[in-house]
């Protein structure tokens, strides 16, 4: 029945009309309400559908990757399964599931299997418990060295995840696996090095050995990590700190003695070299001078020979007088001792090496 027909019928039957009018108004109101409700339900369903599919949008940060598991299975294989930074979409759960993997941020682990019992707070405050006479294996860590000594050592590695899929899906607790690899590397290196090599002589080699073994174990166990840095801190047992300090002092003293000796030796050798060079130079100069002098003498000889042959006595007298004139000019003291009037020679007495007078004693001065 249409609304128009219903309207005419209402004018013909007034009493019936009032009863049915109230009923129709209620039906109409109910229909209106149902229409409205159904419309709201449709809108809500539409919004839910939009929200359902809209919830599939997600963003991937700069330092992470995302793997989509569709019905539990990775979408894509190998590197193609890794979604990089940006906005992506996937079916909402339970169809797809997102697994976020932090891949580029560096992580670090520190092993204390070789360190005595302490806490970071105690260490920072310098209030560590005093060392006992022995080490308790239940709480104290240490390394047994190749020469069967005991040293304390702890190591920290900084690493990043090279293969996020292996690191995330391969292990229930990958950081713990990395830590155990570091534990193993540290005690292995300790077992391969002597005490002095660990503490003094080959610290770098020791650290490199730890790092290399961690990398080897990570490869063997397919951890998918790359070790960026390794630091190792090693000390002798606290119970022997005094005697180890004495060794350091003795080593220092010995090194100083050797350094001083080397310095002296260098000076001595340099001095000898300089002296040798001077001797050789002097010999070369002397030899040259000598040859020059002799040649000059020879020339002088040749020049004087004709005069000498002319009158040898006169020549000699002339030369002696010239020499005397030169000598008398040069000498500091010249004593002329004339003959006495009686014709006898004067006497001149010289005291050779006279004994020097003894210095006055203190008592004598007073």
């Amino acid at each position, binding site marked *: 029945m249409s609304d128009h027909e219903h309207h005419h019928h209402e004018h013909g039957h007034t009493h019936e009309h009032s009863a049915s009018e109230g009923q129709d108004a209620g039906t109409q109101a109910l229909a209106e309400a149902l229409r409205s409700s159904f419309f709201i339900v449709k809108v809500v369903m539409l919004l839910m559908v939009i929200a359902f599919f809209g919830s599939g949008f997600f963003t991937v940060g700069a330092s992470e990757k995302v793997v989509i598991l569709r019905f539990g299975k990775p979408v894509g294989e190998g590197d193609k399964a890794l979604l990089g930074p940006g906005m992506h979409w996937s079916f909402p759960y339970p169809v797809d599931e997102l697994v976020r993997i932090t891949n580029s941020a560096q992580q670090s682990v520190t092993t204390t299997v070789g360190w005595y019992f302490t806490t970071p707070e105690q260490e920072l405050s310098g209030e560590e418990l005093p060392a006992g006479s022995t080490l308790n294996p239940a709480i104290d860590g240490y390394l047994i060295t190749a020469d069967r000594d005991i040293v304390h050592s702890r190591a920290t590695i900084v690493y990043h995840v090279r293969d996020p899929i292996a690191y995330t899906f391969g292990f229930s607790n990958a950081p713990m696996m990395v830590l155990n690899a570091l534990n193993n590397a540290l005690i292995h290196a300790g077992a391969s090095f002597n005490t002095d090599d660990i503490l003094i002589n080959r610290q770098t080699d020791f650290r490199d050995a730890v790092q290399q073994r961690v990398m080897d174990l990570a490869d063997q166990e397919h951890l998918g990590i790359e070790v960026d840095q390794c630091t190792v801190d090693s000390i002798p047992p606290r119970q022997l700190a005094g005697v180890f300090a004495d060794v350091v002092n003795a080593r220092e003293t010995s090194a100083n003695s050797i350094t001083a000796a080397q310095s002296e030796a260098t000076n001595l050798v340099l001095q000898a070299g300089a002296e040798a060079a001077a001797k050789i130079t002097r010999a070369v100069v002397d030899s040259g001078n000598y040859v020059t002098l002799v040649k000059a003498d020879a020339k002088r000889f040749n020049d004087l020979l004709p005069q000498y042959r002319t009158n040898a006595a006169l020549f000699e007298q002339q030369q002696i007088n010239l020499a005397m004139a030169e*000598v008398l000019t040069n000498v500091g003291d010249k004593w002329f001792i004339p003959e006495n009037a009686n014709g006898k020679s004067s006497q001149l007495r010289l005291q050779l090496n006279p004994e020097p007078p003894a210095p006055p004693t203190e008592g004598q001065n007073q």
Partner: protein
Amino acid sequence: MKRNVMTLIIGVILVVIFLLLLFTFQVRRTQIAVVTTFGKPVANLDQPGLYFKWPWPIQHVYKFDNRIQNFEDRPSQSLTADSNPLIVTVYVGWRISDAAAFYPKFPGGSVEMAQTMLENMVRNAQNAVVASNTLSAFVNADPTQLKFDEIQNEMLQTVQTDLATNNYGMKLEFLGLKKIQLPDSVTQAVFDRMKANRQKLIDNLKSQGVADALRIRSAADSDAARTLADANAEAIRTRAEGEAEAAKTLPTFEQNPQLAGFLLRIDAIKQSLNQKSTLIFDEGIPPFDLFQNLPTNSVPNP
């Protein structure tokens, strides 16, 4: 009619979702699963994906983590082949490799029970392997004598064999030593030995330093002496060459040896008398003989 279609679609979707939940299940990338029909394993699933199943109580799905799990044994003391007590702690990486085999071995697929069993196996293997090796196989500076990896592999093989023999559905991926320690009482003896060794080292360092310094000085003395000796030899050789060169002038002087001798004496006098010399002479020495017979103010001797 339009409303009915919409209602029908919604109903179908709800039914489909309900049926999917009832008849399907997922195995994730990190899981393996076993499907049982009335308690009997019928499907062993080791690949991720969506699978169908009959609803409970007909079929039941048991899922397990198939990632490698870390397990650490408690420290255990053993005697080495040369009777040295060692406290060894081992870690292992293991995983459930066969869900159908693992599930019935441990009630409810209990991982805790599996690890307890694994702990016993590891300890047995550890004791056996430690007892068959000397301490020098554990710690040694000589790589050929150090059997660290061999010891680990031996333990690993022993446990792997036990697991395979008993078909526990578990696989040991790797095994490593986490700690090697000594009993409390032994550390005191080690400290005493280390202290004695350090004291010897101190003495050695001191004497070695003195000896090294002495050796360095001696070597330097020797080097210096050799250098000077070489220099002296070189100087002598150089002078000899000069003298040989000078000797070539001898024929010149041989023309008149008297003149040569006279000139040499004259030169000797000039060179020997310098400013520090005191020359004493009397009237008999030329040219002071010119002073002879000159009147003087000398007092004649009585």
